[in-house]
């Protein structure tokens, strides 16, 4: 075991080694390690390269805010196993047996990266440099500059294999949600739970305790911190608090909805069956307590980014939680008391502290005394001006500051440099709610101000420092939450020994005696934004912090600005010459930490992506080799190819068979609405363009529905079953829309009408039989209805039984042939279909799909709403003027038909189109012109809406919307295509049996 591991220290299991590889080399860590702590235990600091300059970097944090130590990880044989992912934070990824880790953004290797040439040219790559150049020659941007920039940018590689893991989601309702299980979160959860509230406590780490896990020397209520944590967790469990670890609150949405991402398997050596990798929890809480603590700020000085330079608090965590010393010889540089404790802990664990450099002139006596006791050199009122070391820091230059002037400096050797620039409250989730922040001049930090949601902020998150203060604040917040929910809360006390209280000051860049224009003082480590970049942005007129952010990319890295935002603001406000709140704080955006797409997608992948609605007859179609097409949420049988047939051949055969004898078609997806009640006919009169009063019982009629704007929305055949009962059919895709539209008018405009609407789309399975032999097939199966043409004429409806099943039997035709639509209760749909297939066997009955249906109706000139109309087509445009009740004074959309543009000449009208060469089938969507030789842009008259090869007619047919088309009957128009111009003659849309003789049987 490495000499950096401190035996017996930390919460890792020293008896449980875990093997993993980094860039192909095998290492050992311990159960409980993160990738970063395990590598640090092996003396490895260099873990990544930065975004722009490809500078060598090591971890700067010990948590999810890490900007530098991003790695690619995979399991089960690397990338091809589908579980590779880029940009994983080594500081947060728990170690597991066999974990494969690789470094990123380097070529060929982490230690030698050719991309680092950018670092030599850093003066060129100042903030916003790309806005100022790469403009000449013009064509070079696409072909040269941009590809080069793109290849250099980005961090890890994207996965290139489909992810085999599954993702899950749940809703959760809870009285109180506590986010963060540090000292304040624990006491808040307990206080709320003691009041009897249902409480949920979540924490992003593998275990609860927060900062206390890094501070075992603190005593609470007479117990060592870690024993106290265990006792709290016991009581929380006894009280039934739902505790969730490895669970990040990623976003705070309206009305106390908080999204949580729970990571279920990434820490496991092997993947259990049926276990989702991650789960999205959509939590709705009565009250929320945010106890997310504070984030330690780096100090900004030249060379503050070398491997080995890290936050003092991180070093303390590596030591106390993971039992890892981050180096043998440390220099600590700080502007806050907290780093002193880190220094003492490290010193006590065997790391030599070469010096504690404090930027402040005076430091608390107890701290300096404690340093003296340990023989640590203290340099107050000092600054750091430079560091050295290519792949690891090896020395640091410090200098005294007198009256704001930097005096002569000197170098101190070290193998790690621990910095602390103070702490900033973690207010990301609070900001998601649009809660307001206020600037606190004393703390030099933004603190929560006005909350717009029912939430409390507790502990360090609102600027409190020291464990006792946080613990007490947690109790108060938990009690406040309980009281807000109407529960009795009890105050309780808490006593802390060895509390680590403290305070500090904030800085812009640390003062230096070097050339500030040469300083590489990093603010955003990952994006390589330096202090002088920010000053340059301000000099160029970027005065709002949002401009500065966007111009420099400060705060836009994968740490979401957790490391860089406040430092960036301090520097920008200094440069602008205004107080920080006047320069502003950039908005924190969800998610709190980057979250996989898979977690958001949840169950909605593959077959579960979206509902696929299938009819009761779908299984038969599938068994008989149907090809399917998606139509809204449904899948419909498209055509039924036989061996060797393509779509064209199958459709030709289906069409001919239907016209010759009989075809059978599954029309179950048609929308169906029962309109019932004494005012049903009045309602129908108001909704549809047609007149309904005189429609006899047992008869049906083709109805047209407009939007209030006068354009066609839907159509369908509507049957009258009783005086007060209509069976309305709609298009497949329009079913839900039409019902919603009808309900809207009924409930809100005409609530006085005694009529009710019920969707029966799925109550009925609908089978259409068409063809000259349709009656012969059907009649033997019908009971209770005379099937003669006199008793059941075209456009009529009857209730009877078919194949022993109660049915609504329509006689109607969407093909021009003798046609019936048989509606039976859905569970019997397949039985009806099979009975008809059997009865039709003697007539060579032919199942057909939607494509044949489309051809057959086009041969008759029947429109498909949405194909031959497009939302700008009025009834008259589609030759449906006859469907408007002449005596009607109002119906939905009627007034709009009188608007100037709807009565203007030259509207597009639906006409038939026959190509000069009948073998040429026009493309649907092809545009029509009068003069094919005109220059572009051409004057287009309209477009082809429907076009098919008609096997029946032995040639192609088409319908088109053409300006003034009805007045152009017989004229030739042109359809210019890439391969030549087609000529076509304008005709009627009724191509087949125009007199309707075939219906008269």
């Amino acid at each position, binding site marked *: 075991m490495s000499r950096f591991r401190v035996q017996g220290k930390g919460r890792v299991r020293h008896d449980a080694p875990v093997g993993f590889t980094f860039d192909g080399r095998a290492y050992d860590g311990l159960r409980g390690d993160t990738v970063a702590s395990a590598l640090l235990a092996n003396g490895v600091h260099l873990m990544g390269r930065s975004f722009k300059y490809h500078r060598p970097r090591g971890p700067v944090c010990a948590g999810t805010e890490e900007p530098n130590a991003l790695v690619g990880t995979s399991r089960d044989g690397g990338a091809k196993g589908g579980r590779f*992912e880029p*940009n994983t934070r080594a500081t947060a990824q728990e170690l597991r047996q066999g974990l494969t880790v690789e470094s990123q953004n380097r070529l060929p290797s982490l230690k030698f990266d050719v991309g680092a040439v950018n670092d030599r040219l850093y*003066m*060129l790559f100042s903030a916003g440099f*790309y*806005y*100022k*150049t790469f*403009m000449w020659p*013009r064509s070079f*941007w*696409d072909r040269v500059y*941009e590809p080069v920039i*793109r*290849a250099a*940018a*980005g*961090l*890890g590689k*994207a*996965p*290139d*294999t*489909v992810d085999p893991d599954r993702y899950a989601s749940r809703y959760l309702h809870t009285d109180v949600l506590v986010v963060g299980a540090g000292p304040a979160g624990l006491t808040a959860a307990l206080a709320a739970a003691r009041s009897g509230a249902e409480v949920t406590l979540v924490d992003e780490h593998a275990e609860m305790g927060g900062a206390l896990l890094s501070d075992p020397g603190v005593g609470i209520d007479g117990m060592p911190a870690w024993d106290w944590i265990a006792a709290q967790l016991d009581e929380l469990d006894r009280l039934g608090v739902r505790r969730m670890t490895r669970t990040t609150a990623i976003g705070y*949405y309206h009305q106390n909805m908080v999204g949580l991402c729970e990571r279920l398997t990434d820490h496991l050596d092997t993947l259990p069956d049926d276990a989702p990798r991650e789960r999205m929890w959509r939590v709705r809480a009565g009250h929320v307590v945010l106890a997310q603590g504070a984030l330690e700020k780096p100090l900004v000085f030249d060379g503050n980014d070398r491997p080995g330079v890290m936050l003092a608090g991180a070093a303390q965590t590596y030591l106390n939680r993971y039992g890892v010393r981050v180096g043998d010889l440390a220099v600590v540089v700080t502007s806050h008391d907290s780093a002193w404790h880190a220094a003492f802990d490290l010193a006590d664990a065997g790391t030599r502290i070469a010096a504690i450099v404090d930027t402040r002139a005076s430091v608390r006596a107890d701290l300096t005394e404690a340093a003296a006791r340990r023989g640590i050199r203290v340099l107050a009122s000092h600054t750091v001006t430079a560091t050295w070391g290519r792949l690891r820091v090896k020395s640091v230059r410090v200098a005294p500051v007198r009256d704001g002037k930097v005096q002569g400096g000197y170098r101190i050797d070290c193998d790690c440099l621990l910095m602390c620039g103070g702490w900033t409250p973690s207010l990301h989730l609070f900001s*998601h709610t649009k809660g307001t922040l206020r600037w606190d001049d004393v703390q030099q930090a933004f603190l929560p101000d006005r909350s717009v949601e029912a939430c409390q902020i507790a502990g360090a998150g609102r600027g409190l420092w020291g464990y006792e203060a946080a613990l007490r604040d947690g109790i108060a917040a938990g009690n406040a939450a309980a009281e807000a929910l109407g529960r009795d809360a009890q105050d309780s006390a808490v006593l802390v020994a060895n509390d680590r209280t403290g305070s500090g000051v904030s800085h812009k860049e640390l003062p230096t005696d070097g050339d500030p224009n040469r300083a590489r003082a990093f603010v955003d480590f990952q994006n390589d934004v330096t202090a002088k970049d920010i000053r340059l942005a301000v000099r*160029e*007129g970027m005065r*709002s912090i949002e*401009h500065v952010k966007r111009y420099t990319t400060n705060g*836009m890295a*994968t740490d*979401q600005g957790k490391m860089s935002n406040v430092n960036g603001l301090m520097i920008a406000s200094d440069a602008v010459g205004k107080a920080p709140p006047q320069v502003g704080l950039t908005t924190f955006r*969800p*998610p709190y930490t*980057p979250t996989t*797409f*898979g977690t958001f*997608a*949840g169950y*909605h*992948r593959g077959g579960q*992506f979206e509902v696929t609605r299938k009819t009761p007859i779908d299984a038969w179609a599938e068994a008989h080799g149907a090809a399917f*097409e*998606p139509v809204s949420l449904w899948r419909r049988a498209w055509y039924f190819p036989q061996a060797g047939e393509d779509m064209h051949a199958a459709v030709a055969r289906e069409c001919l068979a239907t016209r010759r004898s009989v075809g059978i078609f599954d029309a179950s997806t048609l929308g169906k609405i029962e309109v019932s009640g004494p005012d049903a006919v009045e309602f129908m009169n108001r909704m549809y363009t047609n007149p309904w009063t005189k429609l006899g019982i047992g008869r049906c009629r083709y109805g047209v529905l407009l939007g209030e704007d*006068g354009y066609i929305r839907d159509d369908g055949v509507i049957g009258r079953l009783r005086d007060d009962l209509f069976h309305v059919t709609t298009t497949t*895709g329009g079913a839900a829309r039409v019902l919603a539209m009808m309900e809207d008018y009924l409930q809100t405009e005409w609530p006085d009408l005694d009529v009710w609407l019920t969707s029966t789309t799925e109550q009925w399975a609908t089978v259409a039989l068409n063809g000259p032999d349709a009656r012969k097939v059907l009649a033997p199966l019908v009971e209770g209805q005379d099937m003669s043409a006199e008793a059941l004429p075209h456009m009529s409806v009857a209730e009877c039984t078919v194949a022993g099943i109660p049915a609504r039997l329509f006689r109607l035709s969407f093909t021009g042939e003798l046609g019936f639509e048989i509606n039976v209760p859905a569970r019997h749909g397949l039985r009806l279909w099979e009975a008809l297939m059997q009865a039709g066997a003697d007539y060579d009955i032919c199942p057909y799909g939607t494509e044949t249906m489309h051809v057959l109706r086009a041969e008759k000139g029947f429109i*498909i*709403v*949405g194909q031959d109309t*497009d*939302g700008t087509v009025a009834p008259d445009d589609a030759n449906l003027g006859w469907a408007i009740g002449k005596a009607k004074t109002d119906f939905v959309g009627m007034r*709009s038909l009188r608007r*100037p543009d709807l009565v203007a000449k030259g509207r597009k009208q639906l006409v038939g189109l026959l190509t000069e060469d009948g073998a040429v089938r026009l493309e649907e*969507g092809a*545009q029509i012109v009068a003069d094919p030789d005109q220059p*572009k*842009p051409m004057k*287009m008259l309209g477009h082809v809406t429907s076009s098919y090869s008609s096997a029946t007619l032995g040639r192609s047919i088409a319908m088109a919307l053409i300006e003034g088309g009805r007045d152009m009957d017989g004229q030739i128009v042109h359809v210019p*295509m890439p391969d030549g111009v087609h000529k076509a003659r304008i005709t009627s849309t009724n191509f087949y049996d125009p007199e309707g003789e075939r219906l008269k049987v």
Partner: protein
Amino acid sequence: MTHFSAMSLLKNALNGHKGWREQWPDAAPKKEYDVVIVGAGGHGLGAAYYLAKEHGITNVAVIDKGWLGGGNTGRNTTIIRSNYLYDESAKMYDHALDLWEGLSQDLNYNVMFSRRGVMMLAHNVHDVQSFQRHVHSNRLNGVDNRWLTPEEAKRFCPPLNISRDARYPVMGAALQMRAGTARHDAVAWGYARAAAARGVDIIQNCPVIAIRRDASGAVEGVDTAKGFIRAKKVAVSAAGHTSVVMQSAGVRLPLESYPLQALVSEPVKPCFPCVVMSNAVHAYMSQSDKGELVIGSGTDQYVSYSQRGGLPLIEHTLAAICEVFPIFNRMRMLRKWGGIVDVTPDRSAIVGKTPVKNLYVNCGWGTGGFKATPGAAHTLAWTVAKDEPHPINAPFTLERFTTGRLIDEAAAAAVAH
């Protein structure tokens, strides 16, 4: 104005970048302007630039309630294309595209317009019909747009899943090669810098309280947080806030403002070469030069100015992305944000004159405003300067809602059957 070039960059690099000056001054309002433009987004700043450059009107102020480019200009997914269905739209967006192609040089500011191609996926027969109608119409309008088979689409964009078993199989795609993306902030900054160089005042953090009209009913200026500013003409280009501003002049518009969300992933090496849009599945994606996958989501169903937006939409959007590009399942969302889009009943913009004399409006771009920026700005400047419609913005009038002559791009994609 310091000319931007590789030379000037090098020169400044050698002196520590001390030579750069502010790209636009932070102006204090004057008492009076020839034209006041409300809204310092790409459209408003662009209109000011073209007023100055092409019409010689330089006594112009652009006023914004916040910082310039802080509205939808800085919040969109930067898609630029012109393969629209109706002639009116195609002409407007193609005019914009023509200007996009020379914009960096025109402004001396690299807006990183990148012609990487925009591909729109067809997932059902209706999509195929509709997109082919686009392709044919565009071809005769001289607008670049071509049809691809699924295999061709996959070759153009390798992460695409073209499995026939997919819930929404790819049945083909319409590709506009000339289309692409640009760097959104740079558009606002580039216009601001170029306009300021021609004398335009850019006044930030100055909310407009009301448009003031004189006794004759004509516009006389704007009341702002920094006092009254007299103006001979006022043009409102305030995106989601247009209704509110115009209401103060007594003009009610057919507009509603909805929250629209967008998001980016963590940055990765180049893996996605173009822009892909899938209307049926509701997924739009490209990869920024920084390496982030840039993804557009949908609008929430209710009117809102909150810029928040709900979680279910994001969940649906990312499920859609993973459906079309299953290899990106383990990519992580880095950041999501919201904007406010102003939507008209026919989903097409309103650009031009209003019933109030000397008051002009440019609004209703919905989710398509960014791609129109130079075209809308350029034609708006014309209309303001000449007090008459530009041939390209003439169809985008307010009157069309009275006559019924809508430019209904949304309805043209209507699905019923």
